[in-house]
């Protein structure tokens, strides 16, 4: 019999954890919800969600002491997945409502989605709905990554955000999507550190397949 995979879901008061929890359970995982940074290092697999404003999320991460715990966990080489603002906080800095420091695991900035398409026409923000994942410009392949089940495809996943990460290191980019012709960073992966701007827990069967892949890495 296959051993039941377990994940540790970080509750820092800034996410609706229930839907993330339900999606991982649907994929057969045991979910431990933790509120103490001390429990981060015991994780087999760490999941960091997040909704709302960047600064509010970082204030809670810092106040509860999760930043250091997440950095130490990442050094352990075990897998971690950030979702939405849980992806953005992994970067150095966000420009949402002023400049705010992130956890700083990945170099780069979180910036506003352009309000104009490349052809100059106005485009809507927030970017809400199903968009298609494409390989990044550097041509990075998805084999062996979080997106391995979708090699050679352009799966649609659910986004809802007004800001997006701009990784400084192009090699950290795993997938983009196109919005008004602009490339928006949709997912990153650097070794054991994985994160998605989209919501796998809300992306139907595609999202569940990505969650299963995370559990298998």
């Amino acid at each position, binding site marked *: 019999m296959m051993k039941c995979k377990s994940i540790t879901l970080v509750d820092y008061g800034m996410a609706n954890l*229930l839907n993330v929890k339900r999606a991982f359970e649907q994929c057969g995982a045991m979910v431990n919800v933790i509120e103490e940074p001390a429990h981060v290092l015991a994780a087999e697999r760490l999941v960091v969600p997040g909704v709302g404003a960047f600064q509010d999320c970082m204030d809670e991460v810092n106040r509860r002491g999760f930043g250091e715990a997440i950095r130490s966990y990442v050094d352990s080489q075990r897998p971690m997945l950030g979702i939405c603002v849980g992806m953005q906080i992994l970067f150095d800095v966000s420009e949402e409502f002023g400049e705010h420091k992130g956890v700083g695991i990945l170099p780069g900035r979180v910036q506003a989605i352009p309000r104009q398409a490349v052809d100059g026409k106005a485009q809507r923000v927030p970017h*809400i709905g199903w968009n298609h994942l494409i390989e990044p410009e550097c041509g990075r392949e998805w084999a062996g990554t979080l997106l391995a089940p979708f090699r050679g495809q352009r799966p649609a996943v659910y*986004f809802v*955000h007004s800001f997006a990460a701009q990784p400084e290191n192009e090699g950290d980019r795993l997938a983009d999507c*196109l919005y008004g012709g602009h490339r928006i960073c949709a997912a990153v992966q650097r070794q054991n550190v994985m994160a998605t701007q989209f919501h796998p*827990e809300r992306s139907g069967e595609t999202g569940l397949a990505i969650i299963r892949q995370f559990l298998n890495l």
Partner: protein
Amino acid sequence: MGLAKRIIPCLDVTAGRVVKGVQFVELRDAGDPVEIAKRYDDQGADELTFLDITASSDERDIILHIIEEVAAQVFIPLTVGGGVRAVEDVRRLLNAGADKVSINTSAVVNPQLVRDASERYGNQCIVVAIDAKRVAGAAEPKWEVFTHGGRKATGLDAVAWAKQMQDYGAGEILLTSMDRDGAKIGFDLELTRAISDAVEVPVIASGGVGNLQHLVDGVKIGGADAVLAASIFHFGEYTVRQAKEYMAQHGIEMRL
């Protein structure tokens, strides 16, 4: 390949059942909300909207149970509205599994609620629903905002109101034409276009869908980012899949 337009089946819920009316009255039973939600998910719905149209606040908690049950089985975004009066109501719905909360009457009674809720939870999860009715005999096309399930006129101009709600932190506008609701003669395209040109946040068109061409028109002529429909799906005239394929055949980017 970019952002797909969305099809959103709408489930009006009262006393634990899905119902559908014509111009906001004459309700007809359409079935069990959890079964219907699963069916639309299987058919490829991009989102689901649940509107609690219960008049009695005693039954209000039913919607929380329904949302919990749906959210445990359906892994696409859920929007829930109806009777949201306080930031606390928003929190309860989000905790039950809603991804977005729709505010209608309370936005008119207390616009600050929209501001407070969006500052607290982010504008991405606050939808302002506007029920608008064409003003008869006006020189220029004009629409008035109604509240309380379409029973109460407010004197507010729908276009100005939509802009104001965007400024207050609405992340999306759910626009229903009361004249067209349940009439199956298509969206009020002039209204849809007026609102979608006036705001920068996504607009969901609602009210009047009777066939698949109406959905295409809502996007192509009305400028909507998403189209919401109830009757055509509830009573089996079309599946969500058929609607998506039809829209894709007419050059609209869809998630298939």
